[in-house]
C-alpha cells in the first residue's frame, strides 16, 4: 500500500474528474437543485488535501445540510464513531438528527428502512462490515409492495476489509452477499475524493444503497478533495489507466495494489488497462466489455474469498459477452478460501506479487 501508488490514482482521478457526466437521479437532481449544485459541475473545484475519513465526514455534513429530512445514526456515531467519520455532526445538527443507537444491527437496519419508507434519508452506520450479518434480512421493500412503498432513502455505511491485524471479525469483505440482492446498490470507493462524491450520490440516490468504506484507507489515503457539494455517478466504472495488453478490474483498497502492479508490469513492457468498478450492482458491463474487447484479457481482483466472490460474476458475464474476443481465461486474484486469518493475513491477501504472477500467466497464455 505504497503512498506512491495512491498518489498515482489521485492524479488519474484528478485528470478524469472534469469529464464525468453528472449523476441525474430524480432525488439527486432535486437535492442538488435545493443545494444550489449546478448540474454538470461535478467536483471541479479545488480543495484541501484530506484523508478518506475526512472526505466521508465532509459528505455527511453536506448531506445533512442540504436535506432537512436526512438522519445519521449508528453505534457510537454521536461522539464521532470509531473511525471518526461522524465527528462534529451531532454538535452541528443536533441529537435529533445525529444519534447513537443501541447495539442492535438488525434493529438499526430495520429502523432505517422504516425511516426511509416515510420519505426520509436514513444514513445508517454499521460499525464494522463484519457486524452486518444480524441485519441481513431487512432489505427491499419496493418490489414486494408494487412500488407502494420503498426505502430508497436508505444508505448503510460500513467499514470493510483488511486492516493488517484485525483478525476474523474486523476484516471481512462481505460485498458479494449483498450483490445477491436485486434492488440494492453496492458501492465501494477507492479514495477520499471518490468516497465523498460517491457517498453523496448514494445518499441522494432513490434506491437503497450499501456503501462499504475501505477502512485501511481511512487515514492512509490522502488526496485533494473539493470542499463543495459534488456527486460522482453510480453504476459507472472508471478507466483510471489506459492500456492495451490486459484489463484489470477491482474496487476499494484493492485498486492501490492493482495500480502498483500496473507500474511494475509496465517495466516489462506489459500495458495494463485499470478499471475501478466503483458500483458493484448494478455494474457497468459496457465499460468493462469495451476494455476487454480491446485487450482480449481480463483479471479481476478482490479481498473477499475467491469462491462465490463478485469476481466470479464478472468473469461469467464477460465470458458471455466477449467469448470470441477473449484470448485467455479470465484470471481471478482474490482472498483465499479460508476464514479471514489473524496471522498470515498477507498470505491470505491478493497481494501485488500474486497479481503480477497472474498478469504474466494471462498475457503469456
Amino acid at each position: 500500500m505504497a503512498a506512491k501508488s495512491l498518489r498515482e490514482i489521485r492524479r488519474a482521478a484528478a485528470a478524469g474528474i472534469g469529464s464525468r457526466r453528472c449523476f441525474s437521479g430524480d432525488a439527486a437532481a432535486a437535492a442538488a437543485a435545493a443545494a444550489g449544485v449546478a448540474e454538470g459541475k461535478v467536483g471541479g473545484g479545488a480543495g484541501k488535501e484530506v484523508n478518506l475519513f475526512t472526505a466521508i465526514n465532509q459528505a455527511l455534513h453536506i448531506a445533512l445540510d442540504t436535506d432537512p429530512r436526512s438522519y445519521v445514526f449508528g453505534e457510537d456515531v454521536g461522539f464521532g464513531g470509531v473511525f471518526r467519520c461522524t465527528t462534529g455532526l451531532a454538535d452541528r445538527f443536533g441529537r435529533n438528527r445525529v444519534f447513537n443507537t443501541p447495539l442492535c444491527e438488525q434493529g438499526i437496519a430495520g429502523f432505517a428502512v422504516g425511516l426511509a419508507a416515510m420519505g426520509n434519508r436514513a444514513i445508517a452506520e454499521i460499525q464494522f462490515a463484519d457486524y452486518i450479518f444480524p441485519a441481513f434480512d431487512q432489505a427491499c421493500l419496493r418490489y414486494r409492495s408494487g412500488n407502494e412503498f420503498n426505502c430508497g432513502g436508505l444508505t448503510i455505511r460500513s467499514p470493510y476489509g483488511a486492516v493488517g491485524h484485525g483478525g476474523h471479525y474486523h476484516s471481512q469483505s462481505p460485498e458479494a452477499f449483498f450483490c445477491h440482492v436485486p434492488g440494492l446498490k453496492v458501492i465501494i470507493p477507492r479514495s477520499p475524493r471518490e468516497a465523498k462524491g460517491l457517498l453523496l450520490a448514494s445518499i441522494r440516490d432513490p434506491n437503497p444503497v450499501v456503501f462499504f468504506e475501505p477502512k485501511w484507507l481511512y487515514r492512509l489515503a490522502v488526496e485533494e478533495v473539493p470542499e463543495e457539494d459534488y456527486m460522482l455517478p453510480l453504476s459507472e466504472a472508471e478507466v483510471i489507466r489506459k492500456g492495451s495488453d490486459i484489463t484489470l478490474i477491482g474496487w476499494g483498497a484493492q485498486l492501490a495494489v492493482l495500480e502498483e502492479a500496473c507500474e511494475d508490469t509496465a517495466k516489462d513492457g506489459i500495458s495494463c488497462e485499470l478499471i475501478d468498478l466503483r458500483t458493484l450492482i448494478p455494474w457497468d458491463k459496457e465499460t468493462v466489455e469495451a476494455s476487454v474487447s480491446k485487450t482480449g484479457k481480463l483479471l479481476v481482483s478482490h479481498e473477499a474469498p475467491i469462491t462465490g466472490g463478485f469476481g466470479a460474476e464478472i468473469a461469467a458475464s464477460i465470458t458471455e459477452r466477449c467469448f470470441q474476443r477473449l484470448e485467455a481465461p479470465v484470471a481471478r486474484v482474490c482472498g483465499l478460501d479460508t476464514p479471514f486469518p489473524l496471522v498470515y493475513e498477507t498470505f491470505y491477501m491478493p497481494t501485488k506479487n500474486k497479481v503480477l504472477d497472474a498478469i504474466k500467466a494471462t498475457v503469456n497464455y
Partner: protein
Amino acid sequence: MAAAILLRRTSVPFTSHIVDPPSRDVTTTPAELLTFFRDMSVMRRMEIAADSLYKAKLIRGFCHLYDGQEAVAVGMEAAITRSDSIITAYRDHCTYLARGGDLVSAFAELMGRQAGCSRGKGGSMHFYKKDANFYGGHGIVGAQVPLGCGLAFAQKYRKEETATFALYGDGAANQGQLFEALNISALWKLPAILVCENNHYGMGTAEWRAAKSPAYYKRGDYVPGLKVDGMDVLAVKQACKFAKEHAIANGPIVLEMDTYRYHGHSMSDPGSTYRTRDEISGVRQERDPIERVRKLILAHDLATAAELKDMEKEIRKEVDDAIAKAKESPMPDTSELFTNVYVKGFGVEVSSEV
C-alpha cells in the same frame, strides 16, 4: 486456619424479579479468600501487562480488557464446576484464566503464537478451553447468547445436571437475538443462566442512553432475574450457586452483575470521553473488588499487609515470566492458514488458485 468457616454478608441486598432471592449470608473460608485475592490480582496484572504489550505493538488488532470486572469471573468459578459451561463475548481473557487457563497460553494467544490457547489463530477475542467447558470468546456483540442456550439444551438432553452461564454486556442486552434465546430457553426449561455483566457502557454509550429499562435483571419478563453487586466476589459466588440450582430445576434465569471496567471499551477507546475521570477513580476507591477482599483478609487477620504485598510482587514476576515464555513461542506454521477450515478426507480440501 484453612478449615475455619467465615460467614459474611453481601455488601448490598440482592434485588430480584419474580423469584425469592438467596440469603445475603455467604460462607467462605480463609483459604478461599486468599485464593480470590490471588486470582483477581493475577487477572488485574495480566490485563495491565496486555495494555503495555499492545502499546508496544506486540499485541495487534482488537483487544478488550477486563480489569475492574474480575469479581464476576472469579466468583462465578467458585460457585460452579468445570462440567458447567461458560460462554462469553470478546472481553474474555480473564474468564479463560478463571476456567484454569494459564498465563503463558493467554499471552501467546494475544501475541498470535503457536503456544496460544487457540494456537495463535484466534487472538484476543477468541480464547477457548474445551477441557474446562469454556466455549469461548466471541467477536460479535450478543451472538454468543443463543449459542449458550444451545449448550444448555445439550446439557438437559444428556441429563447432566449441569448448567451454562452465557455472559454478555449491557450493550448486548439490547440485541434482538437475546430475547429469541430467552424465549426458547424458557419454553424448554433449559439450564441456561444469562449473565449480564453490566459495566454501564455499551462501547461509548451509557446504559440509560441505549436501554429504555437498564434494569437488565427484569428484562426477561417471564424469566426470573437477580441483580447482584458484581464488585463483591462473595455476592457473585452466592448468586451463581443459587442460579445454577434454579436453572437445573426450573429453567433459565437472568443475573445482572453490577460491575465496572476501568479501561475503555477497546484499545482504541481512551475510556474518558463519555464518562468522567472522577467516576472511574470513585469506583476504584469505593468498589474495587480486589481492595474489598484485601480489607476482609486484613480485618480477619488472615494475612498481613506485607504478606499481601509480597504476593502481588510474586504475581508481577509470574506475569513477566509468562510474557517472556510466550514471546519464545514461534508464530504458527504458515500451513496453519489452511488448516481447520474443513475436515480432511471428506472430499474437500482448501483450495487456493494463486
